[in-house]
């Protein structure tokens, strides 16, 4: 942000100046709420949640934020009730009747401000759903509340800017033009040649390829090892893949604040696959990109392309013996962080472990793990909001730091662009500066046997710095 621009800081996070000029917010919020209830399927959940929550408080036991802060506002059930109260009052017969007879709750600007603050203190990790006897999904409530707030202008500026760049600007969240993308890939090809002595290409716009590759586009700026490993896996396994120059970004911040945006961004993925007459969406190491891509059949019908996460592809190739390995070459102790978006519902938990066990001498689990894992602390897009870093790393991420410390691992493998950024900051801010946070594929790259003598093995671990 330039110094000349005023800094609107009404909430813990920056919002756009125009968001603060919005008037008549309660009415607009309720109008949006009514439209959403009519066109979506949220009403069925709100109806049930508003009735059955027994206020047993088990959700508090499972919230990593509440356990750290102990603040009343951080009890998940209470936070969920902020939205349910509005629902009951304005969208149920009982609520409207009660309001007419005895008055009571009215939606105000101040109440909306409180919601704006609270629903961005939740990472929508959905751990609390695991311990709720009723299966109440507070993550769903946070997801919906943020959409409603977005329609009255309240969304962290960082998220809006990224989506604007993706839908109206260069076409991806990091504003990387096609020429720069190709340059980067050429650089990575040279690195693979220099370090590993293999010629591997990043294919562009190959019509009829099986997979179209969509990593978190930020990987092209920050995670060269992950990308080189992705290409290497495709190379040794003989996989059919391509990068589409029409869209090469798997990131979908719509998942974090607006179904309207999510629908458009998922549509762009599917359109690119269809343009290239390809069959599958191949998502790189990114949790939320994978989960939002799983919505492809939701938004694009049952004939939408199949979604494959790179971990699934690699684990399968490994099982089929298509990835020759030098053995367990990773000597340091390694632990694995389950990204919420792929692990909470139990969809991808074993594949990364298969890969890591095949290449690591000393692999240890964090506790808890898999579907019960702790969030990195930057989930639901919070990691992109730099101005709340102390909150993310010291409060939301404190238990995560303790969990990593307890494993004694020197390397944390986290197959998610957001988790990686957040975990690096968590480690920095919690006295774990010597812990390395990498992708699963980064480690695999060191173990792939290309059948040629590496030209400069000592550079293996330094490609990130070279790129930086």
């Amino acid at each position: 942000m330039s110094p000349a621009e005023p800094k609107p800081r009404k909430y813990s996070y920056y919002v756009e100046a125009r968001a603060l000029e919005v008037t008549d917010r309660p009415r607009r919020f309720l109008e949006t709420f009514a439209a959403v209830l009519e066109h979506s399927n949220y009403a069925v959940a709100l109806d049930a949640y508003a009735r059955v929550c027994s206020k047993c408080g088990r959700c508090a036991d499972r919230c990593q934020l509440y356990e750290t802060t102990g603040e009343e506002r951080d009890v998940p059930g209470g936070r969920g009730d902020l939205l349910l109260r509005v629902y009951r009052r304005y969208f149920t017969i009982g609520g409207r009747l009660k309001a007419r007879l005895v008055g009571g709750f009215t939606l105000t600007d101040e109440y909306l401000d409180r919601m704006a603050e609270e629903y961005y203190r939740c990472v929508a990790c959905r751990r609390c759903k695991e311990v709720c006897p009723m299966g109440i999904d507070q993550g769903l409530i946070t997801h919906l509340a943020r959409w409603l707030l977005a329609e009255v202008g309240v969304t962290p500026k960082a998220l809006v800017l990224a989506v604007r760049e993706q839908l109206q600007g260069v076409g991806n969240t990091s504003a990387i033009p096609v020429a720069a993308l190709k340059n980067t890939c050429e650089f990575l090809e040279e690195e693979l040649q220099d370090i590993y002595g293999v010629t591997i290409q990043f294919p562009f716009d190959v019509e009829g390829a099986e997979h179209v590759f969509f990593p978190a586009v930020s990987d092209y700026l920050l995670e060269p090892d992950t990308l080189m490993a992705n290409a290497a896996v495709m190379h040794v396994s003989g996989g059919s893949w391509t990068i589409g120059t029409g869209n090469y970004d798997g990131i979908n911040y719509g998942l974090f604040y607006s179904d309207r945006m999510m629908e458009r961004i998922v549509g762009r993925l599917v359109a690119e696959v269809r343009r290239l007459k390809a069959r599958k969406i191949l998502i790189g190491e990114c949790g939320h990109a994978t989960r939002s891509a799983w919505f492809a059949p939701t938004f694009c019908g049952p004939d939408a392309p199949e979604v494959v996460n790179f971990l699934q592809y690699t684990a399968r190739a490994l099982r089929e013996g298509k990835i020759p390995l030098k053995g367990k070459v990773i000597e340091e102790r390694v632990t694995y962080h389950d990204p919420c978006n792929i692990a909470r519902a139990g969809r991808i938990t074993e594949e990364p472990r298969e890969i890591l066990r095949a290449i690591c001498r000393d692999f240890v689990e964090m506790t808890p793990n898999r579907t019960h894992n702790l969030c990195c602390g930057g989930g639901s897009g919070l990691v992109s909001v730099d101005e709340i870093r102390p909150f993310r790393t010291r409060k939301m991420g404190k238990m995560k730091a303790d969990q990593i410390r307890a494993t004694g691992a020197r390397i944390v493998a986290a197959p998610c662009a957001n988790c990686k950024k957040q975990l690096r900051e968590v480690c920095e801010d919690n006295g774990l500066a010597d812990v390395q946070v990498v992708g699963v594929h980064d480690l695999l790259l060191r173990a792939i046997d290309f059948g040629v003598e590496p030209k400069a093995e000592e550079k293996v671990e330094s490609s990130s710095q070279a790129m930086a």
Partner: protein
Amino acid sequence: MDLWLEWARGPLFRIAIAFLILGLVRHVAIAVFEIAWAVRRAGDKNIPYRKLARATLAWLVPAGKLGHRPLYGLTTLAFHVSIVIVPLFLGGHIALWARATDLAWPAIPNLLADVLTVIATAAAVLLVIERIAARGPQMLSRFSDYAFPLLIAVVFGSGFLAMHPALSPVAFRPALLVHALGANLILIFIPFSKLSHVILMPLTHLISEVAWHFPPHAGSEVGLALGKENEPV
């Protein structure tokens, strides 16, 4: 007193049961209709029914789900088991049904009913104490969250005293009247309060899943409804 007792066990009970049954049927009908409607509209109709059924059953038989506050978990479990079994399977209750409807089913031994009744009463009181003592639940609690367990404790406690006049400091009839009135009150409250989870709980895990299955154009339809279809991001 006898007149009141007859009223509580007769007309009032019939009204309470009517409220209960009609209310619960309404809840189930609405929930099932809404689920079916949501699935019909959903773009992705692929719903993991088996997995959801397992998750639901895991909570209906919550072994291993006691969490990291085992006392609270155990109290809750003991509470629920006993308040479901005793009202339905106490010999005296079945006799009442048989008198009115000719319907009867096997009863549990009275001794077991006694034990469960004491457990229910103690657990209900303990629940209130634990609710006050634990910060999470205490912050969430409303008046009714304390009132319901206490009312249940009164109903079970008075029921026990009515069954054991020899042990009772109060006379048989007043104890029975309190028992019957309180029980009717609970039956009426069930459909109108959080107690509706007695019937909705088996559906809520499914509901949580279905709600994520959006209609294909839910987002753009909302944009259209708000006149934002051409609005820049």
